[in-house]
């Protein structure tokens, strides 16, 4: 038997995992909410000046995610450019996951537009094949939300994800155990979930081209070459479950990060610093909401040419106070910032998080000052809870209010301007709204 014929898993579906992936999710949601956009090239991300998501119609004309609006409009003058409306996207997202949960309780919300569902053992409930159950999920999402999802069905999460990527949009790909060896021969290494450019380069040096070439290598080789993560991928690709579908909502964080791209690259020190401080404020608000504290802070600045520089520092006492971390972050900014460069985004990563419960006092610390800083953060949370996020902010935030060159930024999604009776610019009905008149 040639290796091409070597069956990896006998049987069809010893486990059955569905990966569902919303096709061009943000743009598709816009089209679903406003039927007049159906069939037209739609992109979102107007407020950033960069395309966040392009509909399949736009993609067909050569407009991709990540290119600038100016370039996109050049390629396609009739492009519909919308500001991002995350509120509506998350409402649609929640409904998509709710539909999956009608079929099985084991649903993992991997991100806003994709998830996993474990449908193993459900055949006896639905009296149909796993393929048909997966198709029913796909059809229900299309009928109820007017959205298309691509579906991958296979033995493990890694395989299901590869399968859903295989045919898009509105694709359906089921890979049974006995067909695994044929499927993996058609998957280039770059497509494998978890393999970055470096890993792929390394594997290519050893003469591997496809996912199949990789799993034909001995288990010990994968372990030695790529360590634990690579070994886990090797097993997942062979149909052995390493990563179960986890239903828990993310409550424990390893880190919390905030990154915002400016509407227009800037060399203005005050403005860039203010953006960074705003990232810090947002990240710490999340830290406190989850009753956590921070032991490590990373700050990064990304330049106009997409090169990025960052610095990381460990704290000698964990904190949940923005005010306590601020001087440190300003120091890091001072080290990183170079006046002759233009920057396009700032990032703060709060790492080594732990629960903010018991606190060990320190002999050499200034207790009174620390208590004051924590009080300040608590008061700001309280005020902002009542009057809106960032209403009360650290003084550097004033530099954010300076006039900006781009007007695209100031355009709000229609959902925020076309309010229903009783809605405010901070509180709206948590229901997806269609832009139609009857």
């Amino acid at each position: 038997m040639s290796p091409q014929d070597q069956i990896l898993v006998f049987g069809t579906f010893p486990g059955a995992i569905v990966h569902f992936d919303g096709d061009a999710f943000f743009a598709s949601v816009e089209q679903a909410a406003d039927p007049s956009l159906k069939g037209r090239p739609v992109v979102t991300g107007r407020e950033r000046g960069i395309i966040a998501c392009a509909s399949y119609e736009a993609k067909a004309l050569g407009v991709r995610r990540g290119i600038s609006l100016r370039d996109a409009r050049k390629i396609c003058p009739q492009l519909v450019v919308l500001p991002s409306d995350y509120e509506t996207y998350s409402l649609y997202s929640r409904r998509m996951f709710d539909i999956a949960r009608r079929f099985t309780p084991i649903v993992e919300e991997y991100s806003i537009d994709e998830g996993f569902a474990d449908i193993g053992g459900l055949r006896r409930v639905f009296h149909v094949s796993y393929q048909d159950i997966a198709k029913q999920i796909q059809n229900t999402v299309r009928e109820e939300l007017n959205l298309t999802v691509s579906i991958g069905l296979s033995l493990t999460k890694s395989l299901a994800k590869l399968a859903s990527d295989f045919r898009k949009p509105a694709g359906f790909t089921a890979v049974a155990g006995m067909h695994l060896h044929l499927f993996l021969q058609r998957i280039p290494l770059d497509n494998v979930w978890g393999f970055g450019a470096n890993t792929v380069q390394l594997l290519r040096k050893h003469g591997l081209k496809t996912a199949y070439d990789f799993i034909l290598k001995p288990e010990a080789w994968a372990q030695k070459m790529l360590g634990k993560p690579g070994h886990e991928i090797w097993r997942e690709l062979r149909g052995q479950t390493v990563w179960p579908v986890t239903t828990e909502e993310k409550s424990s964080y390893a880190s919390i990060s905030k990154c915002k791209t400016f509407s227009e690259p800037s060399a203005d020190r005050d403005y860039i610093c203010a953006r960074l401080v705003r990232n810090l404020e947002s990240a710490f608000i999340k830290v406190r909401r989850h009753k956590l504290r921070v032991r490590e802070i990373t700050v990064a600045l990304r330049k106009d040419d997409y090169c990025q520089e960052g610095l990381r520092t460990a704290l000698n006492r964990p904190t949940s106070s923005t005010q306590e971390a601020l001087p440190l972050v300003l120091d890091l900014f001072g080290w990183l910032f170079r006046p002759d460069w233009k920057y396009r985004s700032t990032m703060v990563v709060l790492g080594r998080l732990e629960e903010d419960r018991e606190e060990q006092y320190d002999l050499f610390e200034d207790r009174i000052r620390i208590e004051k800083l924590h009080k300040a953060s608590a008061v700001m949370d309280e005020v902002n809870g009542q009057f809106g996020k960032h209403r009360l902010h650290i003084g550097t935030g004033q530099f954010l209010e300076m006039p900006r060159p781009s007007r695209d930024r100031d355009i709000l999604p229609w959902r925020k301007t076309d309010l229903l009776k009783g809605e405010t610019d901070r509180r709206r009905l948590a229901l997806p709204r269609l832009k139609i008149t009857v």
Partner: protein
Amino acid sequence: MKLKVEKAAVVEGLQKVLSIVSTRTTLPILSNVLLQAEGGKLHLTSTDLEVSVKTSVDASVSKKGGTTLPARRLASIIRELASHDVEITIEDKDTAVIQAGPSFFKLRGASEDDFPPLPKFEGSRAFTLKQGVFRDMLVKTSYAASTDETRYILNGVLLSFRDEKLTVVATDGRRLALVEQEVEFPKDSEGDLVIPTKTVNELIRTLQDDGSIRIQASANQVAFEFGDMLIISKLIEGAFPNFRQVIPSQAEQRVTIEREALMNAVRRVALLASEQASTVRLTFANNRLEITAETPDVGEARETLPVKFSAKEITVAFNPEFIVAPLKTLDSDEVFFEVTDALSPGVIKSNVPFLYVLMPMRIN
């Protein structure tokens, strides 16, 4: 080089230098031990560039010379040998032949010229102490040193020679251990030395009960000479925090407690302290001390000790490890526990000049 040594002696000698040899090092020669034979002695030296340790054992040297050999492999070979004496011969290119009775080993080494030389040392200040006393002072304090690299100045033990006294202090910022001893030294040798923890541990391991130790210090290095040993170490540079300032001058309550009873009770109760933030509560109430711990969804523990206490009830929470650590190293029957309130530091004292300050934990 050709020599004959007693197996037991060379095993002991290697043991003294081996803990400095790191298993993972960027400089391969540092995983070797330097062997030098001359004048009836075999000198063994190891270094990690921060700390260097040199010791010697009696040997009958028939041809003097030197080489370096992989330290751990050499030690495990000699440890396993069956005969009383070991013969080590260096052939050309630093290959050693080790013979003992019927056993024959050939071990490839590296030239002694590649081994980093011991730092040239000119100490301007010198002190002489009793080995046993010095070791005892280190044992009673060093566990409190910090391992947090962000507080590098606390990653060691402070030797403060002032006012005809040696004060040894270690702290990680959350607890502080201090012992004091009167010592004679020239007035112009007064000053502070912060010794890295690795060096302190090496000293604790190799110091003997009897005999004296000579300490010589320069601005950034220190040398310890005792018995057959020479340890040269870098000093941690920087200003040690003002420890006197954090020692509470007066506590509200002083309670006498049996040392072992307290230690064992805290150990037992701590079995049910939560893993994330290990905490036990000490409640001093009417003639009793109640030690409690609880972990949600796991359970709780309580133990009561009889003590003399008649004031208003005080509850304070500590990391149990911080209570047990000093009690383990003390040898008195009783200790004095001083407390004020839930937010103020606790103090443990013993009748030897020992003092231990520990910060409480805030519990929600």
